[in-house]
């Protein structure tokens, strides 16, 4: 039985801040910092937005494109994030209620740094493939924070995408998935701490690059494919520089990663990053396109996917919800003062 993506939806908050505006406050060359990271602006959630509202918007856009799917046929909802609004009380139940998939279904919140969204896709593939559920929903969304003045403050942003996984009406078949996971402490946040810590230079080679390259090579070996067999590729993008470099190391061209690379314009959406890049590829894909996907989550692991776009995408009601081009058009730029207020960085009296 073929298993794959039946529908998808994406959402990114409307507000943006530029690295030069952040650098101005901390007395560093923000513009140079942005250039080094290849991040020219990042998204900022409104004070009334969080992972629940972002995941809901993405999931509603996903459902709007498949009016023929009864949400009551959804048997599982997984939301992957490292910024769930509650420590205890699942985001996934609120999202499921918001698309009216409750109550005959299972749900759980997933956490694996930036790859919890792709882990959700794999869980849904298993449930659909084994016949346990008819459809599963996997969402990756975050509203991540970097400590004030930390390098992460220039990249941590907000956004998310949702995928309806099933075996009927597939617009993109998932041919295979492979994962590479180890215990690598490159980035973490302890319970109750507002901001994460990272291992500085340690976050590069032994963490991001090793895991992505290993998972990607494992998958291509199992499929008997080479980078040239794919029209599109998307890699986890904590900044613009890492995915560009890892693509080159694996043998993918700038043209192949063009649609999947959104971080330069929206920042690092963590669990939303690869899902959003994949959504943007699907916004632009035609039947027969082959897509290579590799996520990365600190801690650490990578999930790789080989995906083929089917003829069904021709009749897919993509315009029933805004494509990412539309979602990202017309942003509102804010200054650091407004940003500090939006992100709860100002200590208020009780």
């Amino acid at each position, binding site marked *: 039985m073929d298993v794959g993506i039946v529908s998808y939806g994406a959402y990114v908050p409307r507000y943006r801040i530029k690295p030069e505006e952040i650098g101005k406050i901390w007395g560093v060359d923000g513009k140079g910092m942005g250039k080094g990271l290849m991040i020219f602006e990042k998204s900022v959630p409104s004070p*009334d937005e*969080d992972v629940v*509202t972002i995941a809901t918007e993405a999931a509603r856009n996903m459902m709007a494109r498949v009016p023929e799917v009864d949400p009551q046929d959804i048997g599982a909802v997984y939301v992957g994030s490292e910024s769930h*609004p509650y420590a205890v009380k699942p985001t996934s139940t609120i999202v499921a209620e918001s698309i009216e998939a409750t109550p005959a279904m299972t749900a759980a919140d997933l956490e694996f740094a930036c790859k919890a969204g792709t882990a959700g896709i794999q869980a849904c593939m298993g449930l659909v493939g084994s016949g346990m559920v008819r459809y599963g929903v996997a969402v990756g969304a975050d509203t991540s924070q970097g400590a004030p003045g930390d390098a992460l403050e220039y990249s941590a942003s907000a956004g998310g995408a949702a995928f309806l996984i099933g075996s009927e009406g597939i617009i993109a078949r998932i041919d295979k998935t492979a994962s590479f996971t180890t215990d690598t402490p490159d980035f973490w946040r302890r319970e109750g701490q507002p901001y994460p810590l990272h291992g500085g230079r340690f976050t590069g080679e032994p963490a991001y690059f090793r895991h992505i390259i290993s998972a990607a090579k494992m998958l291509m070996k199992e499929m008997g494919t080479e980078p040239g067999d794919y029209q599109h590729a998307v890699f986890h993008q904590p900044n613009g520089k890492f995915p560009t470099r890892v693509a080159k190391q694996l043998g993918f061209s700038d043209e192949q990663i063009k649609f999947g690379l959104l971080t330069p314009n929206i920042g690092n959406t963590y669990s939303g990053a690869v899902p959003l890049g994949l959504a943007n590829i699907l916004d632009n894909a035609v039947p027969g396109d082959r897509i290579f996907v590799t996520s990365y989550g600190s801690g650490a692991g990578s999930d790789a996917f080989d995906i083929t776009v089917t003829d069904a995408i021709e009749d897919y009601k993509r315009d029933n919800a*805004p494509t990412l081009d539309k979602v990202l058009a017309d942003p509102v730029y804010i200054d650091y003062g407004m940003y500090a207020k939006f992100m709860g960085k100002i200590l208020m009296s009780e």
Partner: protein
Amino acid sequence: MASVAKEWREIPGRYNLRGTKCGSCGKVFFPSRSFCPVCRRESIGKVEDYKLDRHGEVYSFSVVHEAPESCSMLKPYAVVMVRNRDGVLLSGQMVDVDVDAIEIGMPVRAVLRKLDADGLAGVIHYGFKFTPDL
């Protein structure tokens, strides 16, 4: 905890614009009513669950400068009355928009947002607000 239970019962309306519709005259009610004031006894047993359309147009609006505590982070903001595609008037906060750019007839859409929270440790209340339609 009484307020948590009350809020919980209102979830279908607040998240998904679930109202009711009179099976006799077709009138849509939001919030839900189980009795049609037009058809009166005729409507008994005929009022059905109905999901309102999320899209509509600004019917009227007002800008709030003195906000309650829960909305103080967003002020100044607009409260709008929206005529949705079912012809029903809904009211709520309008967000992600410059209040000076709001106009009568502007296309809008209901989205899920945080309405408020019971302090730092309590329940977060979600419900619909309006944003410009894309």
